């Protein structure tokens, strides 16, 4: 079927009355997502795209039975709204906004993990389950239902890979943006594990990029736990060096998150490393994916 979102996912949109929040609510509804409410403090009682707006998450949850939330809240207000959302009992949260201070992300991450909440982002396009629904900003036209899972650090590259697969008549089970920030709310390996356990996913594509160590750590998980085929593309081969985390980062990690280092780790874990996005079509064909 899918991971993270399913038939019983009832979504609220936080920051629904903003320009982006309302536009994206339109697209989510159009794609068939069950958007049951919105939250903007002070705007309770309004409607946006036919969806009722509440002053607080708690109220929205009580009135609508929502169990998932997608954020279009200004960066400065995200931490507070995030904690409020967890306290209101929501168990799946997608943080679309970018430019959230790292200090806030650390606090959000630690609280979400403590409370058993699955959160994605910041700077994520969200989740899309082709033909069923989406939380976030992924443009629906590029996706087709199928059995390949995609996890991407980059929003736009997740569209690229889904688009290439769809053109090759290979559909997707779920497409997940994990967020492009140096610290994200859930690591790559956590999402891989969901795909490994999803009986409607046959293979997984990792779309990574230079910097950090998500791919290296995921390689460890893949060699220990994954049975399904995995392909990976790492963007940034000819890019100016990724965000340098100083000596301390290099010392802790033992490598600086180079493309070559990631390739090596992934290859050692049995992952098919793709040189260029278009190669994903060949890989899918070779693995008879659909």
């Amino acid at each position: 079927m899918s991971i993270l979102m399913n038939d019983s996912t009832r979504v609220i949109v936080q920051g629904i009355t903003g320009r982006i929040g309302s536009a994206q609510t339109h697209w989510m509804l159009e794609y068939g997502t069950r958007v049951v409410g919105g939250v903007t403090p002070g705007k309770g009682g309004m409607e946006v795209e036919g969806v009722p707006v509440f002053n607080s998450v708690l109220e929205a949850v009580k009135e609508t039975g929502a169990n998932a939330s997608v954020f279009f809240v200004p960066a400065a207000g995200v931490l507070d709204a995030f904690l409020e959302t967890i306290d209101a009992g929501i168990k799946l949260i997608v943080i679309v906004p970018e430019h959230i201070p790292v200090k806030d992300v650390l606090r959000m991450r630690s609280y979400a993990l403590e409370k058993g909440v699955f959160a994605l982002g910041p700077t994520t396009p969200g989740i899309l389950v082709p033909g069923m629904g989406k939380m976030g900003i992924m443009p629906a036209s590029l996706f087709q239902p199928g059995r390949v899972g995609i996890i991407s650090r980059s929003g736009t590259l997740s569209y690229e890979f889904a688009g290439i697969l769809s053109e090759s008549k290979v559909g997707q089970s779920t497409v997940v943006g994990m967020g492009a920030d140096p610290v994200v709310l859930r690591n790559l390996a956590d999402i891989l594990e969901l795909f490994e356990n999803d009986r409607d996913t046959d293979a997984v594509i990792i779309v990574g990029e230079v910097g950090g160590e998500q791919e290296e750590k995921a390689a460890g998980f893949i060699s220990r736990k994954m049975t399904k085929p995995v392909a990976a593309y790492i963007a940034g081969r000819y890019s100016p060096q990724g965000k340098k985390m100083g000596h301390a980062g290099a010392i802790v990690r033992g490598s600086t998150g180079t493309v070559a280092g990631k390739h090596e780790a992934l290859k050692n874990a049995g992952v098919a490393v793709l040189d260029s996005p278009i190669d994903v079509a060949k890989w899918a064909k070779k693995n008879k994916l659909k």
Partner: protein
Amino acid sequence: MRLHEYEALDIFEQNRIPVPRRELVSTMHDALHVAGEIGYPVILKAQVLVGGRGLAGGIRTAQNEDELKEAADELFMSEVKGMPVRKVLVCEKVDIARELYLGMTIDGYSGKPVIVASTEGGVLIEETARTSPEKIAAIHIEPSFGYYPYQARGLLRMLGIEQKMITAWSDIIGQLYHIATRYEALIAEINPLVVLTNGGLMAVDAVLEVDDSALSRIRFPLPDRVDRIENPLERRGREIGVTYVDLDGDIGLISSGAGLGMASMDIIGQTMRPANFLETGGGITADLLYRCMELIMMKPDLRGIFINVYGGINPIHEGAKGVIRYMQEHNVKIPVVAKALGNRQEETWEIFKSGGVHVVTEAATEKAVDVLYKLVGPGEKGPAAKSLR
């Protein structure tokens, strides 16, 4: 935002970390005057925002006036890793018994600040980490728990630091963590932290990188962020709100995401050579793309432009309007190829086509890059893949 060493040293000093006597100069005259006040020997350090400055010749010692004249002359004439040296820090040369290392950064994978210390500091610290891991110790700080001095003492005991040094060390760790917290630092580093021959500790270098996303809420004075960008095109990019990185090729690039931009560069670089990296993020408007066109066209001798955008959060039809308005107003003659998919894609294609942009409607960026390559060829410089790492 990475602070200059002299800025970071000031902040360290304000927060009670011992630092050398020093003064910033921008002329030979001032350098001579300051060195006279501080007393020879002195160290001259180029204030450029690049790593590996020491190995690249940016740090010089002067035993006397003659040596100082020579060193300062060379520094002010030089570039360190491509950055012109405009300011030099003249520092007292302290008597060093031993070099240590102390750093703090954010461990992105565990989502926690991490404090790293080593009994061997200096430029080869990363090498030490590989070859002598027992000389390095690190502790993670739980965000909801916070930092307490006993954690520093534990870290230092892991390294086998003599007890008599532990209080001085752990005080500096506490101060560094305090600075990192107040300034929302992604990196705060002292390399080397030196043991003086008199037994005291001193930070003879300082690195501080502040989280850009937190700049607006930091309550302490910080230097202006745009001013410090040396490259005028990159400065302009920051001003209009996009990420622009100047490169040495001749194909202009506009993308609507960092990952897509990097992949586009990788693909362009196989056959041609990008002139820049430009990433708009999620704020596309007609005006913004007009300004982006203006920015990439500042580069002389551009042979072609590649636009790669997705309509997810961005209204790409608006962006297209800005692109063609610029092309019309400035009579752009070089080929422009655009791949634009997602919400309102058909509308976007129509707008692009009406302005003479070559539109590619397939998903793979490779195919769109092929279209551009067929229009402009490899060019004189050849593909980036040949020369870039």
